[in-house]
């Protein structure tokens, strides 16, 4: 198969894209702004349709429902509530663990500082 050239930079991670000439970079930035603006506009359209009383809340999470509008069997309301409670408990638990880790770190740093002070004094005494 003959060697073919690529048409773009599909495989380059976004932080490693080759630098574009300034005029193309401006065009690229402008495109991204337009797409972002379009997304925001669609989002606002959806939100406004909710406010208009159409009760289309399901539309904003429609991806979670099948083609007939039924929720997935993996996603019961009971399960969602239980998981919310679990997340709240996990956050409390992790906050407690974080406080304890910070406290342990503070103690260890104190010990390290004290040990370094002792080492300094010993070194000074040996030099004398």
């Amino acid at each position, binding site marked *: 198969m003959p060697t*073919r050239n690529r048409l*773009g930079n599909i495989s380059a991670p976004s932080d490693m894209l080759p630098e574009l000439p300034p005029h193309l970079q401006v065009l690229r930035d*402008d495109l991204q702004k337009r797409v972002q603006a379009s997304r925001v506009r669609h989002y606002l359209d959806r939100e406004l349709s909710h406010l208009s009383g159409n009760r289309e809340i399901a539309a904003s999470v429609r991806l979670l429902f099948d083609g007939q509008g039924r929720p997935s069997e993996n996603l019961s309301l009971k399960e969602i509530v*239980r*998981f919310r409670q679990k997340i709240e408990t996990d956050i409390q638990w992790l906050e407690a663990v974080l406080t304890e880790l910070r406290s342990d770190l503070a103690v260890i740093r104190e010990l390290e500082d004290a040990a370094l002070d002792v080492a300094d004094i010993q070194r000074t005494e040996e030099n004398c």
Partner: protein
Amino acid sequence: MRQPLFILALPRSYTSLIAGMLGQHPQAYGLPELNLFTVDRLIEMWQDGPDKTGMSRFQRHGILRAVAQIYAGEQSSAAVVMANHWVAARQSRSGMQVFREIADAVSPLMAIDKSPAHVVSPVFLQRIYDAYPDAFYLHLTRHPTNQGHSVMKIQDGGYALSVNSIDYCEGEAVIDPQIAWHDINLNILELLEKVPPRQKMHVRGEDVMAEPLQCLPRICRWLGLRDDLEALEDMLHPELSPFATVGPINALFGNDPNYMRDPVFESHLPKHPPLRAPLPWRMDGACLKPEVQRMALEFGYSH
């Protein structure tokens, strides 16, 4: 142990449906999108850099749902919590090691992976081939106009933008998915040049949609799987896979959300627009580039 099957294709190319169908074969196990070969170490999938998009969080759902199903036998939030512990215990392992563990766990069934993120980079594809030089590789394609049109209908072409599929022309930058179609298929073709003929196959998604009972047995025979009526009947029901619907609240996706809304297969004959026709997403009347047309002709699409 059976060698796995890697389905290599762009998103919106019937990948979810066909992977789901093959995954329902009684001798196969269709995995959700694991994306494991996109990382050196598993922990990288949990490290959202400033550059990553919101989608990266969803890219972890596949591995969590797979582990939940394989080891806990269910799709529940508790099983996904267990899966989180499972991956945390393996965070320093390579994606390849973790994939191998999962493939071993579903053995003797054939593991079927389709992660569209893999085909974006030759580096990811090479990782797969280095790990699995004896695996099967199915190159799945869709007509460039239909694939591009489908991409552009979702989030204003967000996927194409995310892979820099941008055409700079006449003082304007335009999202144009045909660039991704060409370059990603080129990534796949370059990998397949290294793969022995016995281990690779090209399939047009449209042919499977139109004639499943002709295409699926051919794929089964190539893979060394049964091609009897019972197996074919199973494959016509991808909706029965545990990954074909939305998952538990803490791992919702792991597959194309549009597919999960309606995973039922219905045979149909997709239209093939002429390769020289103006593209529906180009307001300037532009057509497929000559390179794209040439590649599409090689895949059997016609003018």
